[in-house]
């Protein structure tokens, strides 16, 4: 769906993206993560054909986005991190405007508006003006405007920022729903725990360079699990013991905390815990770490540092 080749973006006197090349398959949700100033927004804006790169090529659904920006926009929906709404227009008017702007045939406009209103849970609010909507509803309207033309690729820049937990959960469900409906999503966010709920792959960028492109987040999540052990005092013996276990990988010791990866097999975990306790290691906590994405991200960033 997205093919990026040797993408370079520069502001005067500063190179923001350095020769990025990657591709993302159709019907996937790719999380774009990285620290502030890494170049995430610039990359998203280049893919959306809103900013022109210095060099390189971006194809979305087989169209060179900078050669044919208007044509490519028929396949792309984009929601910026800071977006605005026409405050004095109602939800329906805002969406009607977008159907006109996207050149959707008049006979199909009503259907498109109803589809997006239903999908985004805006039915009860469709006659409210944008200025009367809550933050969460505004976000939904923003997404609705970005996807009303049923794009093949939906790009969302920090879509969950400022949302309450319930709205975030709804958003996560929506992402999966959209993916299942055939869309490809590229989502940038700082909240890795949330990205983990729906992302298939993770693209990590730092200082304008790709640090890692993990193409299997969810499946590895199913097969493996990250375990954290906290000990009373620092214990090298546990580390040595775990290192000898074939099923324990990616072992990391950080003072009194040990992280390692094992197969997601509860019987094995039970046996391991009993063994460690029998060996009288000073264990205080033993639990599965939920946010493997965060762990993977930090691992990748550390590798990048080295």
């Amino acid at each position, binding site marked *: 769906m997205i093919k990026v080749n040797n993408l370079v973006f520069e502001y*005067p*006197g*500063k190179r923001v993206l350095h020769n990025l090349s990657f591709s993302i398959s159709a019907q996937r949700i790719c999380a774009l993560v990285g620290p502030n100033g890494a170049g995430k927004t610039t990359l998203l804006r280049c893919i959306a054909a809103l900013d022109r790169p210095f060099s390189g090529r971006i194809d979305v659904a087989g169209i060179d986005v900078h050669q044919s920006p208007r044509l490519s926009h028929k396949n792309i929906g984009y929601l910026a991190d800071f*977006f605005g709404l*026409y405050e004095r227009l109602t939800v329906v008017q805002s969406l009607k405007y977008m159907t*006109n702007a996207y050149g959707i045939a008049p006979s199909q406009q009503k259907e498109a508006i109803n589809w997006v209103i239903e999908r985004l849970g805006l039915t009860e609010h469709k006659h409210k003006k944008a200025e009367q909507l809550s933050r969460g509803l505004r976000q939904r309207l923003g997404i609705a405007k970005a996807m009303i033309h049923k794009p093949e690729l939906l790009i969302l820049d920090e879509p969950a920022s400022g949302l309450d937990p319930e709205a975030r959960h709804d958003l996560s469900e929506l992402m999966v729903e959209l993916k299942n409906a055939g869309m490809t999503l590229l989502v940038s966010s700082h909240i890795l725990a949330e990205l983990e709920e729906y992302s298939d792959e993770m693209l990590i960028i730092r200082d304008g360079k790709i640090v890692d492109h993990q193409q299997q987040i969810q499946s590895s999540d199913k097969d493996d699990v990250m375990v954290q052990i906290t000990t009373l005092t620092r214990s090298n013996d546990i580390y040595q013991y775990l290192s000898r276990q074939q099923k324990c990988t990616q072992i990391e010791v950080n003072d009194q905390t040990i992280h390692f990866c094992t197969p997601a097999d509860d019987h094995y975990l039970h046996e391991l815990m009993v063994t460690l306790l029998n060996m009288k290691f000073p264990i205080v906590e033993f639990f599965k770490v939920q946010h493997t994405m965060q762990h993977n991200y930090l691992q990748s960033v550390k590798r990048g540092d080295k």
Partner: protein
Amino acid sequence: MNPELKRNVWLDSTPFRQVIIPAAVSLFLYLAFALSEKSLGASSMAIISVLTFMVIMIFWGARSVSDSMMDEINQHTWDFQRMSAMGAWSMTWGKLVGSSLYPWFPASIALCVYIVSAWQLVPAVFLVKTSIILFAIAIFSLGFSLLNTLFILRKTNKSSSRQTNSINLVLGIYLLAVMYPLLNNFTSRNQEWYGEMYSFIDFALYTSLVFTAWVIIAVYRLMRQELQYQNSPLVWLIFIGFQLVYWSGFNFVYNANPTLAILFMSLILTWFGLYFSDNHLTTLRRFTLSVSNKQWLSAWRYTPLWCVSYVIFFASAVTFITYNTQTNAVVFAMSCLFFMLRDISIVLFFNINKRHGKTDSSALIITLILYLLLPPILQLMNAESLLFMFIPGEIIDAPSQNWAHILPALLQALIMWILVIRSYRKQWQIAH
């Protein structure tokens, strides 16, 4: 219906907005009518309605257009529009008409009142032509306002209502000051152009239509850039050609020294192109990279406007030298060429070195100091003989050439270009 137009119809379709301003304008015109019946005279109603139309469109309409565009940027809705499938042309006319939809209501009332009140005073053809001119002035003002807003947006990457409104106000006052007396004088005047006499109203009609068309073309071109299309400087080249042909037709040029006038006009157009051009470092790098890679089509697309203008300016200088053999034309023309090179390099220097703050305005201030402040100071110090250091020397009827007078311009241009090239290389290294 154009999406932009429709959106503005929704926004302006509140009963209050639909009634209040047209009512206010109607009452004002009625008051003018009542007064004109009693004391102001028969033609005063026509004058007041024309003035009302011009004030509404030139000031209020233009302001509405720029405010609407700036709102899009400040309220972060512009990206939604840029992501849509609307083309540059649809966006251009949608914004021009849509954003000014509301001022058009009272302005149309004023125009109707003008037609009715002038019906008995002037021939119908004249009335139609005047109405078209008024319409063209209105569109010109709206177009210029949008052009101005897009231009500032492209130059500074943000909207500036203070800057935009100030420029609009100056243009508005100028248009009102120039056009209003002309509109009152149409019947009694003729205009000479390339030695032929034309009725003034016809000349004004065609001129206003053509200049309005150029403003709309310029808006369209900037809109294309906003939508990520690449513009080549071809249209700019045609614009220069049009300007040279248009202004050369007036008798103050036609009967004077045409080659000097063309040299002067191409100099102004190069200056204009210099400030209108996209002089961002990244664009300059794209241009130089395309040239060094011999990608000529890409190089042509990224060619700065001042480059094209300078070529025309150079050709004008050669023509001037060819036809003015009895004067010290070579020194004058070459000084002009070098001073222009220096001015270009000043603008580029500030654009490349962003740390100096506002790039174009800083360059403009430096250039104005060099041209407008230093020469009078030299004159005050009784050092007129040194004026050639800052302005091209006078053209005198002497075939002998004082070659030394070229040196200051050449040296200044050389020094500035060395600084530009050094800064350019430095920024290149920083970027890598």
